[in-house]
């Protein structure tokens, strides 16, 4: 653990503080003030991402530090979910935003790096961005799954979806993105390494996470009505596998492979 005494570090810490304060204020039933703080945190997160982009002179998605910096810009997902999908959980989003920025602020190496030849591809940004967005939706789906298991539901006057259905809807948004991320990675693998599937540990974990959601969708179709709580277990399992895919593969020496350069 290391505190970053840099402008980048300062921006990350301000974002974390704004998100946590927004969460705290929201829990004290001051939703308007919480919302203002959430927006403030988001603005600082965007500035932080833009600053990094300017600093490294390429789309900042090269390593875990940059990926987690991007994941911190979660606010648009909250707005989309609430306004378009009628899905709540803004407080959880604030917490997710703060949590994903903690490793960026305290653990991952922020040393700027030049893009190695393999990453100089038009597929670099779309592949990583699509995965990041899908991961945010899947994390949000898991939070609703936990609420469903805890037996909680939205307040009637907010006209929001119940947790199980919200989980399903979020997975419906995230699953095509997860599929696209896997396919873009595969096409990129063919261009860069000569094969669309290299049996690399990160590829296999990505396939495993995709399969959990395929399993979720089939299970829900088959038994979902009779065992709705199990649906939620699938959704939580999915996010656990995503965390392994995202973190463990890059950090652990157990899974050294083609994606090792992504370790932050």
């Amino acid at each position: 653990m290391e505190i970053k005494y840099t402008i980048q570090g300062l921006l990350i810490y301000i974002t974390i503080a704004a998100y946590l304060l927004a969460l705290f204020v929201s829990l004290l039933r001051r939703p308007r003030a919480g919302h203002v703080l959430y927006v403030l945190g988001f603005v600082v997160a965007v500035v932080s991402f833009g600053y990094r982009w300017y600093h490294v002179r390429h789309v900042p998605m090269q390593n875990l530090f940059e990926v987690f910096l991007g994941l911190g810009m979660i606010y648009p997902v909250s707005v989309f979910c609430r306004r378009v999908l009628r899905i709540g959980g803004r407080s959880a989003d604030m917490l997710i935003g703060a949590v994903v920025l903690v490793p960026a602020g305290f653990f991952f190496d922020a040393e700027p790096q030049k893009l190695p030849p393999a990453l100089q591809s038009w597929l670099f940004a779309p592949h990583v961005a699509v995965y990041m967005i899908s991961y945010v939706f899947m994390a949000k789906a898991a939070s609703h799954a936990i609420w469903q298991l805890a037996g909680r539901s939205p307040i009637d006057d907010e006209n929001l979806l119940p947790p199980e259905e919200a989980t399903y809807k979020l997975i419906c948004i995230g699953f095509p993105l997860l599929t696209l991320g896997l396919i873009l990675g595969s096409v990129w693998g063919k261009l860069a390494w000569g094969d669309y599937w290299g049996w690399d540990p990160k590829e296999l974990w990505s396939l495993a996470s995709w399969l959990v959601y395929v399993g979720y969708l089939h299970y829900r179709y088959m038994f979902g009505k009779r065992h709705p709580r199990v649906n939620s277990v699938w959704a939580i399992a999915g996010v656990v596998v995503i965390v392994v895919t995202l973190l463990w593969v890059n950090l652990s020496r157990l899974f050294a492979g083609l994606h090792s350069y992504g370790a932050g």
Partner: protein
Amino acid sequence: MQGALWGPAEWRNNMVMSVQRGPKNRLRRAAMWAAMAIIMLLFFLSVYGAFIGPKRAKELFNSTVLGVYWVAFALLLMVGVVLFRRLLRVPALLLVHAGCILILAGAIWGSEAGRSLQKTLLGIDIVPTGQMQIHEGYSDNRVILEDNEIHELPFYIKLKDFRVEYYEPGHLYIQTRQGDTAWELPVEIGAELQLDPGFGAVEILRVFENFRITIDGDNRTAVDEPGTGINAALEVRIKTPDGRVSTRYVFDRSRGHIYPDSPLYMSYERVIRDYVSELQVIRNGRVVAEKDIEVNHPLHFGGYHFYQHSYDAQAAEYTVLMVSPDSGLASVYSGFLVLCIGAFWHFWLKRPPKVAMPQSAQTRSAEPDQEANKWKSNTQSRAY
């Protein structure tokens, strides 16, 4: 799989499998169980494969047993399309499953077993994935496989030139012997850096792409011979605080070398931006294709892709290409496209028909209202 992201909640909630009695439904149920089993088996195999490393994982997933598994997977998907009429009524869902079938079919066709089958049944002899080592100015058609077996392509590849490109500028990295202080100076002739008091200053005098020493009697002269090898170096002048001036050569290759009488460690650091091989394809003595290949930009010719794989790190005089056949690739890429279109269409764009509840959901129970209420009570209870 379920669908319909946008629509009445009741409709969506009831988009679950019809559990009618009868032999056909028993068959559907069995197929669904088989699908769940095959998905979960692949999940566990993927996790296991991640632990054993890419080489062993490739062997595992290409083994005969798993060959049977892949064929069974593809067949089950086809059986699913036939058994579940809904797949035929919902084109997006059909595309998702058809995409998976195409990917599996292409992968099987392009695998080692698939290539053997092509040779036996159709007489198509495809050169498997291997490597070619070609020197500058020479052409070759021999592909060396992992087991050192040599196959010949029906055309030749000529290497006109190979070069390594670097990010500009490189950096002169300076560090104290104790490692407690470090400086970086962007490489430019005439660039000067004042170090901390006690260490003096450094100045970059010359930059060499390929450093060589010529000896003429007792005179030794440093010269640059670009194009004949790789030996990047810097000529650096060091001024100590007491006014002494010395010259030092700092090399890109021999990082970590420390002069015995110097309090400073120096290295010339360059980051590789790209590797470029200028290739020509020669068939019957004529150049039929030409491309400068680099990482992410392979050459495609005659059913093969040629990738920049490795190079001569000492003198940059030869390149190593990876040769990979395209067998089954069209099917796999079509599958990717179809799967993607189907997934976005089904989960993002499809609107449900304007009915309150599908027949399938109503037939699930003799008392559908009671069942629906039970479902609702399972998904809603206390407030957030």
